[in-house]
């Protein structure tokens, strides 16, 4: 069904200039406003940002899980495996959803249907997307549960979601997502609702599965710790825009946008002692009332006259793994120089 991957483009998923707006009484909410990024096969890209920055809408836009209306795609292309998802007929899109692109959500408790056994729910995904004889479906479900290291899968397969802990339910969600061998897994805050010891094990699992299957992961999170654990590349979003983009190592070693710098400085660290936290003053503006020009300028202590104009996402030069470090800030050189002076 799927045509062979276009060899000309190395990227598995390419999002270009995506704008997803929502009509509200107060005008258009520009939840995602000109976002571009790409993910290579087998790689992990993290989209980081706080509530309301547009990271979840970006993820939902890829699978077109946005209710229309009030939502609408104003501009953009989403190329997956050589095809533009935004212009695909419904039945082809349906084959991709849950098939070659799977998604897991933050709340495993509410994403599973409470009245069916988990085995039946995983089997449903397999029956919809794979032509497998009915007699083999149960074995396949067991194989999926084993792949996500569910203990005692023969017993678990006939259990209902309420009989399981949060961590186990998230494993079942992952099993369901993996059941059709996706090329891309979209994980929207996959560990936000679980305890920290369970989170560590889920992150380990995602890493192992990726190493085994060479599946790409689009990780949506607000947690910089989780980003550091999994991501190859990071996109930082603020108010519907990408404001910085780099490899994970580069971004953590050398953050350049004042918002990214602020995020790092405001983090209470468990691994070191710190003085007073550097909070970012104010709060994220509402999506219907983004300021003109740089959307961060009202909270930015570096803001000047030029910030009335929208800053383009510009490359700083080639660094690490041949990826570019890009930042959308008029003042980034000035800030870097000032910070270097403080350190020196």
């Amino acid at each position: 069904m799927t045509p062979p991957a276009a060899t000309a483009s190395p990227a598995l998923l390419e999002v270009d200039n995506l704008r997803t707006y929502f009509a509200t009484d107060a005008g258009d909410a520009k939840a995602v406003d000109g976002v571009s990024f790409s993910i290579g096969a087998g790689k992990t890209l993290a989209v980081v940002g706080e509530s309301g920055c547009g990271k979840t809408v970006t993820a939902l836009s890829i699978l077109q899980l946005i209710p229309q209306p009030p939502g609408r795609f104003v501009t953009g292309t989403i190329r997956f495996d050589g095809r533009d998802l935004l212009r695909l007929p419904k039945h082809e899109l349906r084959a991709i959803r849950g098939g070659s692109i799977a998604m897991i959500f933050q709340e495993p408790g509410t994403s599973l249907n409470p009245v069916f056994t988990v085995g039946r729910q995983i089997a449903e995904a397999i029956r919809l997307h794979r032509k497998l004889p009915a007699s083999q479906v149960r074995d396949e479900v067991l194989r999926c549960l084993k792949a996500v290291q569910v203990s005692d899968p023969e017993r678990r397969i006939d259990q209902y979601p309420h009989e399981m802990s949060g961590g186990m339910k998230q494993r079942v969600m992952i099993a369901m997502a993996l059941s059709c061998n996706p090329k891309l897994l979209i994980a929207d805050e996959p560990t936000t609702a679980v305890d920290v010891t369970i989170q560590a094990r889920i992150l380990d699992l995602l890493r192992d599965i990726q190493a085994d299957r060479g599946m790409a992961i689009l990780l949506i999170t607000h947690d910089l710790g989780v980003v550091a654990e999994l991501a190859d590349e990071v996109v930082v979003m603020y108010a519907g825009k990408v404001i910085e983009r780099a490899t994970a190592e580069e971004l953590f070693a050398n953050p350049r946008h004042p918002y990214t710098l602020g995020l790092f400085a405001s983090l209470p660290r468990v691994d070191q002692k710190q003085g007073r936290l550097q909070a970012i003053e104010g709060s994220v503006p509402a999506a219907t009332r983004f300021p003109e020009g740089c959307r961060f300028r009202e909270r930015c202590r570096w803001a000047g006259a030029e910030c009335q104009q929208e800053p383009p996402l510009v490359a700083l030069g080639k660094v690490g793994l041949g990826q570019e470090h890009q930042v959308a800030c008029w003042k980034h050189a000035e800030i870097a120089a000032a910070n270097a002076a403080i350190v020196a």
Partner: protein
Amino acid sequence: MPATRPATPAANRKSHTPLLDVHDLFKHFPVRGGLLSRVRNQLKAVDGVSFSLGAGKTLGLVGESGCGKTTVGRTILRLIPATSGSVLFEGHDVLSVDRHTLRNLRRRMQIIFQDPYGSLNPRMTVQQIVAEPLYVHGMAKGQVLRDEVSALLKQVGLRAEAMNRYPHEFSGGQRQRIGVARALALKPAFIVCDEPTSALDVSIRAQIINLLQDLQQAMGLSYLMISHDLGVVRHISDEVAVMYLGKIVEQASTEALYGDPRHPYTQVLLSAIPVPDPKLRASRAPRVRALDRDDNVPSPINVPAGCAFHPRCPLYAAKGRPVECRTLMPELLPRKSDRSHAVRCHFTDDSAMAGG
């Protein structure tokens, strides 16, 4: 009901009286089931917890969901009745005083809740929300009350114009500031902070932590900081207690707890936190893998025999499954080298190591 009295860390036996002294606190919830709703079992949410808190100090209480940390906070304030134990606050036992005395004590002890959306009445204006404690306790009315509210709002970084608006008009961080203003209204000495920053974004979280620290400095407040976020607790606490299935398993100064954790659960907890540095990824992955293989954490209804942590304990496995871990609940004992550092484990404390 308590069979054994857990030992109190030596640090708690100082000569001067602490502001708050919790001793042997138990809170068991009956679990009902069946046709006649008979009591089938006991959920041991808090199972013999003792600690004390000095004036102007912060004690962090950490642990995962279901460990009983929130129940400790609510039981101390007598928002829910305790099963047994005592809570001495400014010379009175909160759990046994009459209603009149309790009312007076409640002026001095307050709580800030996790969810700034659920904890503010949407039908009340900010003025009404913040004024309510003052009004209920007959502390002020009329213009004095209005002035007091506007001073409180200023203290938490909100403008006086906020008074006539409703909670839905504010962001999460601003709402949490309103919750803080309400808690401060009666000039308390002690505040239970129950996950005050868990529902907030990173940049806003730092604002609220800084606010809590500033207020502590200015007013000499004591905090019981209940949180699952070990970063926040490290930042704000003088002392930290780690809870597991209703019991404190380790208690120490913040420095000792994070610098030299002795209980295997504390070690597991600390190693599980993702560190925001991609370069450390490779070096720490194996430690996380040392964790138990089953996601089903034991519940406080069916607490394992012996040390409650033994089925998940990497040390128990490494030691060849010693029988005492399976049969005997270790006591919370101070370490010989540091009397203020107490650990509930048969094996991690150096004295036990030397003996065994």
